[in-house]
């Protein structure tokens, strides 16, 4: 892994690149030989600004720092379009994670820290390690805000996993095993997630991760050296630096090539959840020490760009420069090249900026009380440098300065202006009902067994959903996961993650709007008030005008929908260059997480039907638009419009559902999404089976005659909405509360017979359950 690394082919005698002496072609050739993704114009601008030939260490530093992954050079200007301020925003998207206000308990204001990332390319190349380090990284982003890590969630997009597609199946299994192995071991419950299977992800899966933390708002630690922090000590904590993850940031910023996948494996980091478990607990101890002493510090996760990226950003965010001595870094191997120590992305590391007076005590907590060196080979807390008033970023190695650049040049914004092609206009709405020769019965079973609809339990039962004992609603029992994070308090939060790739392929802007709408709807369906959003933008190449146009449309969709719903984004991530080696991009995949708040957790609503003789209401409208639905994909319907989002109506519906929930009028609730209304109803009936009780049946006696759309649209359309169960004794109050809201209609009642009855059809719940519960069992046994 030393000089033989495929990323490093130079002898140690030539340690700088004579940019000025080379023509463009020769420069490109030399840069390629060094494994640099920097463009020729970028290389020239570095040499001009430094007024000399840049050293290799400097080149690898700029390569990481100016990569798409770190600099957001293709997307930063677009991201300014997203709303980021609002009444519940404690901290917007400027640091490692955002913070939303949860509520007050015993006079203290509590915030929920939320971070959202992707680990797509690493998970494609080495699924287990890639997915595990995805969890590992996002957990550090939350931890370093001074928070206790309380939950993770994982939206996943796999390729087609039909029998015989062994590679895609192995990737899917490896990802799930990696998430389980890491999350379970660190003891953070997996609260939410979603999963789609689609051939367009065959060569490039999506593994997004969300992590949540709990923090008192007065005790937030920022990702910057404090204002008075001149000469603050930079204390590196964690795993000994090795050669893993060298080139990680640049690797995430180029398209995957199957031929190169093997050589890229060295760019993926190695997870160590056991060490992380101990680092988390030791850091909690440090947080209380700093609180007791009233000391302000900076704390940041080492992610892209390693020691260099983290120390440069931590110091420059506070208005300082930095000096770092690479010889003081605890390493796992002798003779590591300085650029590997500087920018390698070894996992399980964090960086403190601390005043001298407290450094010894913090070192003692990590190294002695929590015995990091005994937990993992040469893991420890160690001083590596300091924050300086001089606005330079300096690295020393073997006593020599190997990097010395203006810090704002290194960390400042680089932006690319790129050509954009607007996406093809999506199809228009149909005026007529859908004509379909197939029977409802036949389609119902096929839809229930569809991979995007069927039970996810075979997947998520690998994850610990309840460690820490604070999970109120685990995955599968409601539309969003719910947790009560504060001991002795009724405050709770709800989390949902959403994004439908079938819509992404048809209409990039509306896919983004639907991702926002669905995540909000899921949170509302458990009775929680939505308070904020995060986003992860998973797209193709920004160098392809059409693919870049999808990103632009997606950002516009996210911005518009969030403004319509009155919410802000507090954290997010952009993952570009997702696609197949032939240049075919993944479907536009904006993935949104919504956080909701319950001031009293006893008002939360779960999905299973609760009693016989209840009334079922549909809150929502059905449209003649099957675009992006499972039905459309089964019937191969082209030219279907994506449902519109009638914002005024939906906002009123959500307000009503929340009022009904907080008045205790909802016995159960479930939103209409993949597969449509009939799937929603079936899943509400199945709930009782999971609780080992006899299923409760449904008679859709009120269904006929009210729907503005046809039978197939009504049964399997995916226009949104929420089905709620209201006990017979509460009907009067419920209808009074609904008032003039027209989109609240009774559609049926719950019955003792284990049947779903509609017109002349009566499906046995147990038969429907068989179709729905089994398809993923063979993939995730």
């Amino acid at each position: 892994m030393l000089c033989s690394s495929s990323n490093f082919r130079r002898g140690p005698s030539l340690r700088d690149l004579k940019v000025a002496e080379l023509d463009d072609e020769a420069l490109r050739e030399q840069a390629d030989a060094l494994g640099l993704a920097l463009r020729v114009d970028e290389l020239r601008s570095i040499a001009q600004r430094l007024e000399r030939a840049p050293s290799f260490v400097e080149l690898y530093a700029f390569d990481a720092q100016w990569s798409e992954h770190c600099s957001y050079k293709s997307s930063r200007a677009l991201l300014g379009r997203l709303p980021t301020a609002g009444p519940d925003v404690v901290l917007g998207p400027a640091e490692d994670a955002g913070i939303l206000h949860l509520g007050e308990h015993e006079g203290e204001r509590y915030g929920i820290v939320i971070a959202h990332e992707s680990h797509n390319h690493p998970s494609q190349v080495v699924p287990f390690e890639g997915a595990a380090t995805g969890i590992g990284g996002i957990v550090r982003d939350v931890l370093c805000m001074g928070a206790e890590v309380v939950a993770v969630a994982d939206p996943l997009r796999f390729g087609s996993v039909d029998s015989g597609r062994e590679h895609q199946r192995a990737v899917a299994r490896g990802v799930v095993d990696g998430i389980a192995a890491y999350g379970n071991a660190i003891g953070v419950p997996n609260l939410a997630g979603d999963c789609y299977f689609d051939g367009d992800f065959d060569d490039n899966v999506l593994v997004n991760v969300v992590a949540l933390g709990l923090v008192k708002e007065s005790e937030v630690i920022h990702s910057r050296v404090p204002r008075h922090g001149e000469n603050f000590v930079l204390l590196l904590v964690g795993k000994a630096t090795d050669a893993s993850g060298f080139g990680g940031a640049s690797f995430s910023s180029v398209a995957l090539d199957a031929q190169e996948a093997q050589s890229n494996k060295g760019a993926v980091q190695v997870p160590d959840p056991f060490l992380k478990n101990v680092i988390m607990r030791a850091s909690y101890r440090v947080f209380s020490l700093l609180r007791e002493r009233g000391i302000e510090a900076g704390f940041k996760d080492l992610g892209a760009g390693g020691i260099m990226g983290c120390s440069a950003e931590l110091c420059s965010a506070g208005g300082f420069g930095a000096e770092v001595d690479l010889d003081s870094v605890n390493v796992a191997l002798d003779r590591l090249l300085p650029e590997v120590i500087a920018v390698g992305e070894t996992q399980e590391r964090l960086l403190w900026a601390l005043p001298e007076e407290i450094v010894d005590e913090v070192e003692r907590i990590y190294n002695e009380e929590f015995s990091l060196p005994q937990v993992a080979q040469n893991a420890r807390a160690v001083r590596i440098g300091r924050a300086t008033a001089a606005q330079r970023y300096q690295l020393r190695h073997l006593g020599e300065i190997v990097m010395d650049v203006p810090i704002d040049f290194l960390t400042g914004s680089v932006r690319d202006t790129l050509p954009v092609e607007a996406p093809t206009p999506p199809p228009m709405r149909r005026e007529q009902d859908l004509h379909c020769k197939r029977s409802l019965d036949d389609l119902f079973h096929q839809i229930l067994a569809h991979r995007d609809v069927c039970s996810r339990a075979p997947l998520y039962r690998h994850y610990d959903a309840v460690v820490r004992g604070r999970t109120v609603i685990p995955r599968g029992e409601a539309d969003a996961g719910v947790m009560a994070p504060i001991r002795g308090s009724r405050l709770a939060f709800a989390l949902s993650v959403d994004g439908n790739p079938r819509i992404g392929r048809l209409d990039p802007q509306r896919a983004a709007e639907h991702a926002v709408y669905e995540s909000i709807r899921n949170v509302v369906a458990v009775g929680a008030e939505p308070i904020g959003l995060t986003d992860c933008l998973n797209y193709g190449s920004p160098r392809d005008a059409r693919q870049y146009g999808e990103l632009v449309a997606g950002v516009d969709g996210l911005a518009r929908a969030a403004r319509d719903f009155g919410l802000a984004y507090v954290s997010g991530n952009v993952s570009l260059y997702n696609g197949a080696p032939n240049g075919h991009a993944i479907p536009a995949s904006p993935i949104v997480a919504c956080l909701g708040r319950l001031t009293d957790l006893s008002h939360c609503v779960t999905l299973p039907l609760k009693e016989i003789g209840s009334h079922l209401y549909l809150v929502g409208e059905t449209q003649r638009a099957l675009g992006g639905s499972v039905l459309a994909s089964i019937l191969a319907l082209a030219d279907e419009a994506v449902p519109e989002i009638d914002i005024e109506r939906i906002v009123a519906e959500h307000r009503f559902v929340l009022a009904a929930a907080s008045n205790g009028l909802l016995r159960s609730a479930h939103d209409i999404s993949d597969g449509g209304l009939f799937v929603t109803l079936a899943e509400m009936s199945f709930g009782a089976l999971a609780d080992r009780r006899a299923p409760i049946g449904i008679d859709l006696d009120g269904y006929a005659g009210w729907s503005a759309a046809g039978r197939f649209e009504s049964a399997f359309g995916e226009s949104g909405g929420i089905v709620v169960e209201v006990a017979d004794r509460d009907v009067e109050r419920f209808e009074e509360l609904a008032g003039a809201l027209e989109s609240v209609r009774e559609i049926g009642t719950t019955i003792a017979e284990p049947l779903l009855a509609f017109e002349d059809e009566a499906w046995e719940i147990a038969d429907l359950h068989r179709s729905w519960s089994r398809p993923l069992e063979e993939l995730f046994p």
Partner: protein
Amino acid sequence: MKARVAVLVFPGTNSEEETRDLLVDCGADARIVHWSEAASLVYYDAFVLPGGFAYEDRIRAGAIAAHDAMLDAVIEGAQAGKYVMGICNGAQILLEAGLAPGTGEIRRPTAAFTHNAQGHFICERVLLRRTVPATRCAIAAALPENLLIPAWAAHAQGRLAAAPAHLDELDRDGYIVFRYADAAGATDAHLAPQGSAHGAAALTNREGNVLAIMPHPERDAWNFNHLDRREGSDPLAPSGGSVLFKSFVTALERL
């Protein structure tokens, strides 16, 4: 005076806080004791080993932790009649330490909770029923007959395994305190979600002062995280699986 209970934390433990919280809510003076504080363990009346992945489950789950200095105090205490309960990884450690079922020598295990039949981690709701007389295990003595205790199975290694003759002996002599049950209270072996021998969910020792239980009652133990939460009940009050912790504290108070 309240009984002093130590909740032990090894490197890799992850369920210490909820375990401590539930013991406190059930009336114990419970404290978390970290591995660097092993010397203080002698001052405690009882020990609870919570869930997690102590020492990364290296070699076998619980194998390294059973040789940790903290176990010296636990073994000495158990032999002197102190009550010891291990949950999940804590149960695995007690088996590796030879404290449960305690049919061999110390630190020479005769049985193990080992890899699940399906070969991976599972997380699901389960019900448990005590299948021995109330007097068999002091820690579980205060539980009403035939009560179904809700809990979560959340483990990769929860299948009881031992030599067949020894398994029959454990079954016959009342070592299997709890078995996996269905809602009607049946305890057929096939109800164990990971294929545990005899449907076993928990083991005691000959004296009945040690309980090694694989599923987590503390994760379904307050109304807010209890499956059958009643409307109008205080969401923060103990319920569900807390009955086992109450029985543990009751046993301590009777000492």
